[in-house]
């Protein structure tokens, strides 16, 4: 304080006379000192990561956590039917709500324990969830309790309040007039309420602009239908109706779908319960090796920028529009030609029962060609359905180009950024960050202190989806109400409420806005999570094939000699989950990389560039250069580099800051591709950490095949000889050292995992983390081999290194009846239950780790440190109260969600039922699995799903020769390759 006063006095020579204290103290520094709640350096310390800061934050978090305990929602929210009439302490309540990503909604049921949302499940009534969710949605609940969230309104870093902001905006709004200087930038939204407020804003300020932009967008597909049919449409693929599917650079089973519905549908045709069952056939042509590629029956490696050429040649083969064939480099290879010819033949043989789908990375022209192919195959109306889009379809790239130009010219007086993180994610060639400096006032509504927030004048905290009212439409139009589960922890507001504020509406409370439009169906909609009768009708369209095809061909760009393709990250998506430690630690489905992104390239390209895993590459294009460590991915196409977005965040919470490398710096308005790229080795090294370092089962020196770990067969052979998988197996004659246990009575829990349905999407892994309070250990500890995930998502490559197939195998504790871990524990801390569970008594465990050593599947996890020691208080709210938080020095592992079994046992008893019904107990991994690959239940009940699954001829035991008799068995993977491509 003294310093500040003296500051004012300095600069004047001689004696300084002052009239009042006001004059003396009226320096900007002093004003700031008065206005700031905390001293300089105190509220900025979040960027640091020192131990002292962490301790301070923990103390602060403790205070905040105490506050939250006092909060109860003021607005009435209705519990789901599964809830109880009156609140019973210790008993969770379930509420229906909805979350959106990329303008597509997924219905959810969220479990609330004592007012804390703790676990996310899919809403079975919602068509895009059907009871399951993606991995990203599972981790939403951690974002809610993120201690690095924006905690108050601030103006230029000085703490302010919503009232002050409201007053400022009132004055500002009066000056705006027709809104020529007002611009609003938000993410794509399919919320009728937000769209309604958007209209209000534009009605009040006719010259204002509301621009929607998503870093990872699904616009091109809609623009493609515009090209083909003259109107932008949402394309719905009914994968459960298709027998032959050709995916052109589309990871529709993974990250190229904003919801899990495609996987849900696709897997129906993969769960072959009888050898005679039909199974679909999946062709994939792609540059990267994605989860969809791993499921492919036949796969062609092709550059992403060559996909257009491939689409055109397929159109030619199928004689779409009778166009002359343009010679294309992509299919010049014999393999490519053969592939396309075979695919065309197969598709033609399955007219009306096939699907051709292009990935969202592909430009509109490719989507147009694909739409024409589907039309020519007669798929429209059977496997391909068009509806009006639920979100805006304006070309967002053109819109942001215009917006940035206006910002540069100084025409934008007030810019509202409602959600998203444009300063980080905007195409680099727009130089959006520079343009922001020319904006009069930048108002940002962000959940955390991100790059956009850092440059904004007003920094407003955004309410989490579980904290705010809203609504959302699924891609097919089905509306849902977004119901909060907790009062905003840090006083945030939703985009909807902000929009209403901007519009100067009378009603600005989210609850009131939403209720107004859904008043008639209110209670039912809140209960169900969906509003009946809101599904959109199919649009009947017909394209002039020849005309559209030539237009599309004209719009196509040539393939790049060396391309960089950008992907949404399986962990951070577009950077929005960068501060989510669960997702950062979830291994990438294909590379198994954690806490990083990398330049993925083929073994041949890596050799050509002279790089190995971890060698830093300099990737340059259009005068921009980024550095990125190389990672060799078998099955990747040559001369192409795949890069995940969403890393290298400079302003982020303590989890995600500077994790990985920022690929956005290379990305331009050209979209997901960067052509004309030069890649060179820099000589630098960077440590990449993976959870799995060995990718093949075969071992060259001994010729070891390890055929009893993952079993796989072509479906044709399986049909002919269903028991082929078990041929040559010796019936072990085993003399037991210890007396056996009678497992013939009562519940005997067991699990069956269908490798033919599993795509390795990590949803089960995240669900398990959320359900079982599994700690995060960080990159360095993963490097040391100490990750704690109870489910290890194993991925093996099969075949040659350049063009292998891949197979996924979720591996958790297999609950062996003759468990090698049990006999070696000196203190009997791991023992068998009467119901066949291999139990861990944490408080008995002394941590000899002998059990882990003796586990042939290596699924036991040891607490090498107290992983929960330094977590902030707010993070503790995410814990599932039904599951013990483990201390250091003890072993832990999957226990088939024993807490869920016990919960249902109580329910059954309370209902005076004698038995728990089949399917009543669902493990967390089973419940979330979109592919329904996991079946769990009582194997003693011959009618149970799990008992039936285990009767299938493709049921196998991992390393059966050990006679461990695991309760989890696997169903062998089947492939349905085209014999012509053999």
């Amino acid at each position, binding site marked *: 304080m003294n310093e500040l006063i003296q500051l004012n006095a300095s600069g004047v020579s001689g004696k300084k006379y002052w009239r009042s204290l006001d004059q003396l103290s009226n320096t900007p520094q002093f004003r700031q000192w008065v206005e700031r709640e905390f001293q300089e350096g105190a509220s900025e310390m979040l960027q640091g990561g020192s131990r002292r800061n962490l301790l301070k934050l923990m103390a602060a978090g403790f205070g905040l956590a105490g506050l939250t305990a006092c909060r109860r929602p003021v607005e009435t929210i209705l519990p789901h039917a599964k809830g109880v009439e009156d609140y019973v302490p210790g008993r969770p309540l379930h509420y229906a709500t909805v979350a959106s990503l990329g303008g597509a909604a997924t219905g959810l049921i969220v479990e609330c324990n004592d007012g804390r949302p703790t676990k996310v499940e899919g809403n079975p009534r919602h068509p895009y969830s059907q009871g399951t969710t993606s991995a990203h949605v599972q981790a939403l609940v951690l974002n809610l309790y993120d201690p690095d969230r924006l905690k108050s309104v601030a103006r230029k870093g000085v703490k302010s309040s919503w009232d002050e902001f409201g007053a400022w905006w009132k004055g500002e709004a009066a000056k705006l007039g027709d809104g020529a200087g007002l611009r609003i930038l938000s993410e794509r939204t399919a919320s009728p309420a937000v769209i309604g407020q958007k209209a209000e804003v534009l009605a009040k300020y006719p010259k204002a602009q509301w621009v929607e932009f998503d870093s990872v967008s699904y616009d091109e597909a809609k623009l493609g239908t515009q090209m083909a049919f003259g109107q932008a449409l949402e394309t719905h693929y009914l994968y459960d109706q298709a027998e032959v599917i050709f995916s052109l650079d589309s990871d529709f089973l993974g990250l190229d779908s904003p919801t899990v519905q495609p996987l849900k549908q696709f897997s129906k045709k993969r769960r072959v319960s009888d050898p005679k069952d039909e199974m679909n056939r999946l062709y994939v042509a792609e540059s990267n090796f994605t989860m969809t590629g791993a499921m492919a029956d036949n796969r062609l490696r092709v550059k992403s920028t060559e996909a257009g050429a491939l689409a055109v040649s397929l159109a030619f083969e199928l004689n779409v529009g009778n166009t002359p064939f343009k010679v294309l480099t992509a299919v010049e290879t014999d393999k490519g030609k053969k592939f396309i010819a075979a695919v065309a033949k197969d598709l033609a043989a399955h007219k009306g029962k096939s699907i051709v789908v292009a990935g969202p990375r592909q430009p509109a022209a490719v989507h147009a060609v694909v739409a024409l192919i589907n039309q020519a195959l007669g798929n429209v109306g059977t496997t391909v359905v068009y509806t009006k889009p639920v979100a805006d379809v304006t070309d967002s790239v053109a819109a942001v180009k215009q917006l940035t130009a206006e910002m540069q010219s100084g025409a934008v007086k007030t810019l509202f950024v409602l959600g998203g993180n444009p300063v980080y994610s905007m195409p680099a060639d727009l130089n959006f960050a520079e343009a922001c400096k020319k904006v009069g006032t930048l108002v940002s509504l962000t959940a955390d202190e991100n790059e956009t927030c850092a440059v904004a004048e007003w920094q407003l905290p955004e309410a989490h989806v579980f904290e705010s009212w809203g609504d959302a439409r699924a891609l097919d139009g089905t509306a849902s109400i977004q119901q909060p589960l907790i009062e905003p922890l840090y006083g945030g507001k939703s985009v909807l409420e902000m929009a209403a504020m901007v519009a100067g509406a009378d009603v600005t409370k989210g609850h009131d806005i939403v209720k107004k439009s859904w008043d008639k169906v209110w209670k039912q909609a809140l209960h169900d999570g969906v509003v009946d009768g809101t599904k959109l009708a199919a649009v009947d369209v017909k394209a002039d094939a020849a005309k559209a095809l030539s237009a599309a061909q004209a719009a196509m760009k040539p393939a790049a000699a060396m391309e960089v393709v950008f992907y949404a990250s399986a962990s951070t998506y577009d950077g929005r989950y960068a501060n989510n430690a669960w997702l950062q630690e979830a291994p990438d489905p294909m590379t198994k990389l954690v806490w990083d992104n990398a330049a993925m390239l083929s073994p041949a390209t890596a050799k050509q560039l002279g790089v190995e895993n971890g060698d830093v590459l300099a990737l340059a294009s259009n005068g921009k250069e980024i550095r990125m460590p190389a990672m060799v991915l078998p099955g990747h196409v040559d001369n192409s580099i795949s890069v995940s977005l969403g890393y290298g965040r400079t302003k982020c919470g303590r989890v995600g800051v500077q994790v990985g490398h920022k690929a956005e710096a290379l990305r331009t308005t050209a979209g997901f591709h960067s052509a004309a790229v030069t890649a060179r080795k820099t000589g630098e090294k960077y440590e990449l950490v993976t959870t*799995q*370092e*060995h*990718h*093949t*089962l075969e*071992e060259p*020196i*001994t010729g*070891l*095949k*390890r055929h009893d*770990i993952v079993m796989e067969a072509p479906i044709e052979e399986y049909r002919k000889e269903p028991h082929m998988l078990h041929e040559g197996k010796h019936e072990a004659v085993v003399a037991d050292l*210890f007396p056996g246990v009678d497992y013939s009575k009562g519940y005997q829990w067991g699990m069956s995992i269908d490798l033919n349905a599993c795509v390795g999407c990590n949803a089960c892994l995240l669900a398990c983390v959320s359900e079982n309070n599994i700690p995060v250990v960080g990159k360095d*500890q993963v490097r*040391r*081999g*100490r*990750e704690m995930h109870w489910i*290890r998502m*194993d*991925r*093996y490559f099969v075949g040659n290194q350049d063009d292998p197939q891949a197979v996924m*195998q979720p*591996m958790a504790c297999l609950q062996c009846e003759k468990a*090698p871990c*049990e*006999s*070696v*524990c*000196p*203190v*009997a801390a791991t023992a068998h239950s009467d119901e066949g569970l291999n139990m861990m008594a944490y408080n*008995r*465990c*002394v*941590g*000899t*780790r*002998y059990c*882990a*050593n*003796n586990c*042939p*599947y*290596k699924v*036991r*996890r*040891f*607490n*090498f*440190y*107290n992983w929960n020691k330094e977590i902030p208080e707010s993070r503790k709210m995410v814990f599932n109260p039904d599951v013990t938080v483990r201390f*250091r*020095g*003890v072993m832990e592992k999957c226990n088939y969600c024993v807490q869920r079994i016990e919960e249902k046992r109580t329910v059954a008893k309370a209902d005076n039922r004698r038995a728990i019904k089949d399917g009543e107990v669902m493990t967390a991994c089973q419940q979330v699995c979109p592919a329904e690959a996991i079946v769990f239940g009582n194997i003693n009940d011959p009618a149970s799903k799990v008992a039936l699954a285990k009767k299938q001829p493709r049921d196998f035991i*991992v*390393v059966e020769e*050990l006679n*461990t008799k695991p309760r989890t068995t696997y169903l062998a993977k089947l492939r349905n390759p085209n014999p012509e491509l053999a």
Partner: protein
Amino acid sequence: MADLAMDPRMELNPPLVTGGATYAEVTETISAITENPPPKQWYWAMGVAIPLALMLFGCLAYLVINGIGVWGNNSPVGWGWDITNFVWWIGIGHAGTLISAILFLFRQKWRTSINRAAEAMTLFAVACAMIYPLFHTGRPWRAAYWLFPMPNEALNMWQNFRSPLMWDVFAVSTYATVSALFWFVGLVPDLATLRDRTTNPIRRTVFGLLSLGWRGSATQWRHYELAYLILAGLSTPLVLSVHSIVSFDFATSVLPGWHTTIFPPYFVAGAVFSGFAMVITLMVLARWVYNLQHLITIKHLENMCKVILATGTIVGFAYATEFFIAWYSANQYERFIFMNRLFGPYWWAYWTMVSCNVIAPQFFWFKKLRTSIPVMFVLAIFINIGMWFERFVIIATSLHRDFLPSSWGYFQPTWVDIGTFVGTMGLFLTLFLLFLRFLPMIAISEVKGVLHHQINSQKGGSH
């Protein structure tokens, strides 16, 4: 003297103690070591040993405060240097018991010069070894008593007697107890000698208490000899059982590379092998520092080299047998684990082990080499290193790659791993140096038994 040299008995059975020492000289030489100030080498050695021992306690405290994570252990390598060091130290202990018990029963009189020090070494090695089973657990404050079958009301449960770790607890604690008793009983007459020689009241009191009223009467000697024989009989099976049971930690598991029936004899042979190597290492130094060349003769050392040659060859044979069985079993996982030892990421550990344990002892076929002090000292050091690597190879390379390639990993020690191991050496050395300083390092009464009686009679020496 000349007539003695021509005595045909001398040629057949040359004296075990040379230099014509008399009973009195023996007593004087050995007792003086504990009575006079130690040589300067002793201080140097202590200067190294004590800081290292303190480092051990520092590392253990750091470990207990933070967790096992400070070591390099991980998943899949749940045991790393901890159990490697445990088995290594236990193995070293074996020479002492073998020399004192089995060689006693076999009337191998040459043992008398080295048995005391070897037994002390056993005790100190077992003390070092016992640190690991306790501190390698995640919660040593629980393991310290939960591993013992004590009645408990809170938990109302017993230990798991099926677990080899449980057997280990009994085997090692029994071994430590019996070895300590055996050693102490052997010390009693010598302690009485020290008591009788001293004028220092403290020494007189302490040795007086420890010598249990020994007067050296014929009755006492009769009882004493019988007790010693019984203890030798008790210790003998322990030599075989301790390391057999330690080997069960591995042999009863399902892990390829561990799950093998050859382990008990293979481990015992390896233990004796490493134990003798350690005795040579220590005795070569001790006889040099204290000028005991006439008591611990080249003959003693040569005999030990012969034992090393025999056990080393058994160990080499065991290695070969493992490979043969891996091939012969046609078990793919078994075959893999052995190929992985040869050519996998830990190839260097395997080849170090083979060079030190199989090749090094073969030099002892040559008399010239096995009677050369520098050669045997260097080879003994190599064998100590090789035997450490044997345990590391068995533990780490079997664990790091087993059935499912997805779970494979690699073990790298941290500074705490190294600090703890080097620290146990410091503790061992400290204890051994204290033993040299305060207790008779050679069994005075037993050595006298093997002196040439005639020489003493002629010289009229007294006890």
